[in-house]
């Protein structure tokens, strides 16, 4: 063969530029994934698996936006593949829609199906993406009791003065070196001016003495060591500056009220819980000092823990008023409206005992009065709407501008109605 020597290029581990050239493209890809997740968030929420799960849980999220499409043959195209020696007609060798047989490792055959169409995200990430462009309704500030939250202490720059423990040794040393170099240059410059030809060490010492006069901390008479010593000067000292990031946050209490009566079947409960789950996740991601109260009610209401609220089933009849009265009681005890912004949300299927309606209406009005925002979500899975009574008609009578109702009929409604809830800001003011 008419060739020169074979060239071997040795392994270069430090060749970071080359080996990591995909970094930019990977970043772009991840951005695309994120976008795609955000676009499909309503579908993902409709998936049962995310509700009430642990935050670190990894969820598989289908990705639609980032498939690479080409003209390819569809399922009606067969193929040829190798068998194990006794293939029989009629034998099943694979599933359509998945990778068919015959598609070898990298046979250029472009069949659809096996694209990289799922990705793993943790629930926390997902929630973050979901709420990226949502804001809680402006929390009205109630001046009297604002919680000062010391969020974090952050380093912010350097100062010339400070307390000893914050001395930044590295920077201080650097300053000294800089000053030393500057001083030397100045000293040398002087020598060159004075003695262009040759320089006597003693002359240098003299110049050095000039320089050292600047360093005020140094005693003036130790000329012998002066050349070697170049002590720290007050000006060299650098201190880390720490700023405490305090945010004044409005005091907010969110009261979640859920109907857990017998008429709330699995589907309804699921829808309600999904809704509260979103609400709860949203609030706890955004605000640190928001207090959340969970109330579960049937004919009587109880304050429950988060765990119970999302996972426990109950039964019995429905007195919506019981939930509201409980909420009012809690508000009275702990969250006085002059000090707190109170948000209350209630989810129910609206199947209330008729006799309770007037009481519920009254309590609802009362709630609307003291809350910044009071929302009622009626869960009516499709079909059940026509034969079950509805509270929507009853609550229509509440005139307060800060009372809102939504109707949730199916899984897909959760996200839009959730957004609608939050979008409705407090109108008064």
């Amino acid at each position: 063969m008419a060739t020169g020597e074979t060239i071997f290029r040795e392994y270069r581990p430090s060749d970071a530029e080359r080996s990591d050239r995909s970094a930019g493209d990977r970043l772009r890809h991840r951005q695309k994934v994120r976008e795609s997740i955000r676009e499909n968030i309503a579908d993902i929420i409709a998936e049962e698996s995310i509700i009430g799960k642990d935050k670190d849980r990894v969820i598989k999220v289908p990705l639609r936006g980032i498939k690479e499409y080409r003209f390819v043959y569809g399922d009606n195209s067969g193929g040829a593949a190798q068998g194990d020696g006794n293939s029989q007609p009629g034998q099943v060798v694979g599933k359509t829609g998945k990778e068919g047989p015959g598609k070898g490792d990298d046979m250029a055959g472009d069949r659809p199906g096996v694209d990289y169409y799922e990705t793993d995200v943790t629930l926390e990430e997902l929630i973050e993406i979901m709420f990226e462009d949502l804001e809680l309704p402006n929390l009205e500030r109630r001046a009297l009791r604002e919680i000062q939250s010391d969020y974090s202490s952050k380093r912010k720059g350097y100062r010339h003065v400070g307390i000893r423990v914050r001395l930044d040794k590295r920077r201080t040393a650097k300053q000294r070196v800089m000053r030393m170099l500057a001083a030397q240059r100045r000293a040398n410059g002087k020598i060159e001016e004075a003695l262009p030809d040759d320089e006597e060490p003693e002359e240098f010492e003299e110049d050095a003495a000039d320089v050292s006069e600047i360093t005020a901390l140094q005693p003036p008479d130790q000329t012998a060591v002066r050349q070697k010593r170049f002590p720290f000067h007050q000006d060299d000292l650098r201190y880390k500056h720490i700023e405490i990031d305090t945010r004044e946050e409005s005091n907010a209490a969110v009261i979640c009220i859920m109907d857990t009566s017998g008429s709330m079947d699995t589907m309804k409960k699921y829808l309600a819980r999904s809704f509260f789950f979103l609400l709860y996740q949203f609030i706890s991601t955004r605000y640190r000092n928001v207090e959340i109260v969970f109330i579960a009610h049937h004919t009587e209401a109880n304050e429950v823990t988060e765990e119970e609220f999302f996972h426990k089933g109950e039964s019995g009849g429905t007195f919506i008023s019981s939930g509201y009265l409980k909420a009012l009681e809690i508000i009275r005890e702990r969250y006085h409206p002059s000090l707190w912004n109170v948000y209350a949300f209630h989810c129910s299927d609206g199947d209330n005992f008729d006799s309770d309606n007037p009481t519920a209406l009254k309590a609802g009005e009362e709630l609307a009065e003291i809350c910044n925002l009071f929302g009622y979500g009626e869960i009516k899975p499709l079909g059940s709407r026509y034969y079950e009574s509805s509270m929507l008609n009853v609550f229509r009578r509440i005139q307060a501008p800060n009372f809102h109702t939504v109707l949730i009929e199916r899984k897909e409604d959760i996200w839009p109605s959730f957004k609608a809830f939050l979008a409705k800001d407090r109108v008064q003011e």
Partner: protein
Amino acid sequence: MSGIGLDLSRKSSAYSMDDLVEWDRRIREKVDEFGLDCFPQEFEICDHSQMLGYMAYSGMPSHYPHWSYGKSYEKLKTLYDHGVSGLPYEMVINSNPAIAYLMRDNTLLLNILTMAHVYGHNDFGKNNFTFKSTRAELTVETFKTHAMRVRRYVEDPSIGVEKVDRILDSAHSLSWQCRRNLAIRKLSPEEQIDRALEGAEPRPDPFQKIHARPERVEPDLHHVPIQPDEDVLLFIRDHNPYLAEWEKDLLTIVDEEAKFFIPMMETKIMNEGWASYWHKQILESLNLDQGLHIEFIIRHNQVVRPISGQLNPYHLGLRVWEDIYRRWTEPTADEIKRDGVPTKSGREKLFEVREVERDSSFLRRYLTEEMIREMDIFQYEARGEDYVVSKVADDEGWRAIKDTLIKNIGTNSIPVIKVEDADFGQSRTLYLKHYHDGRDLHLEYGEKTMAYLQRLWGREVVMETTLEGKRSLLCCNDRGFSVRALK
């Protein structure tokens, strides 16, 4: 570019660079002895993360940026990290000089095997006719200039990455819609006009007196394109007046790159078979000591083993090459009776075939009925939810199986789509035609790809195809995508 699958032990290496150089010298002696004709070779030693990096960019030392390469990196890495798939032992770029990457963590034997294998690819890339269209000495430089150009557009404040991606996304989806047989020259517009005029002339008729005079059909020389054009990207580049220069340049870049990879798609089976054939010959003649030899046998068999339910190109290719050698060296009595006594030596025949064939012609000519039977190649088709074996290698089935096989390799697995009319209905609608061969298009993919096509063309795009036996027209315009039935 090509790679051998399967992974293995990630044992630390107990050999030095000098060992590799020495083995390379010995391999090259054999390469010369066997008469392989190679470009100069360069080996680069890399670790697994660098290898992943190269794989994501098809092995190219420099390549333009696009998120899809980030995606393929992530995918490769995920598969690798979870042990689903291993890394290839090697990657080769068909350039002059040829570049190949060797994994540092592979065992000595694996790297020896890889080097021998690489020389096979090197020889193939230098001599096979399909590769003549790629200018090997410019390959690396070309990719580098492409990368620089694309980066410049990305950095241009008036363009930026979003706009560049818009064009690249669309162009990538259409990149394989180009001419497949690059050895056939594309006619220039003038030549196409000449052809059209020639074709319009009536055939000389010896019985003019008794035949009615055929009517001369005037060819429409204003029709664009005069002949259906398969280079979709280039056609759009040349006929969409609203594209900016940088957009046209991006289309050119994507097209050039696709055409660089087409020969590899076209010769995958031959190429891998050829390299496997020669690494086997070379390693067997190297007098390996026992330990290395056993490892060689194991590795070799891992690479060229048949995989049930798939078609391993290494296996298929190697089998056919070995069969060709056998038939031209020691044919059976039956074969002599059928084909006559071979006029060439086995090796001459091998070298001839490696130069003048590509996968489809290679299999068409040299994959015999006996081999299909022996290898138990079957044909499958979709039936409901399942893929079901429809034909097995028996007297009736083997021909159909062979046809199906050939229909599904290389560029044959990409639908043939040509631009028929750039001004359909006098409204600058782009009319394309899918040359249906029994296989329907995947409609969801078709819809999305049509949208890309429309994005590049800037006007309505329609495509004639056949869906479930009915001629249909896929339309994509501002109002969205629709499928209409044609008479």
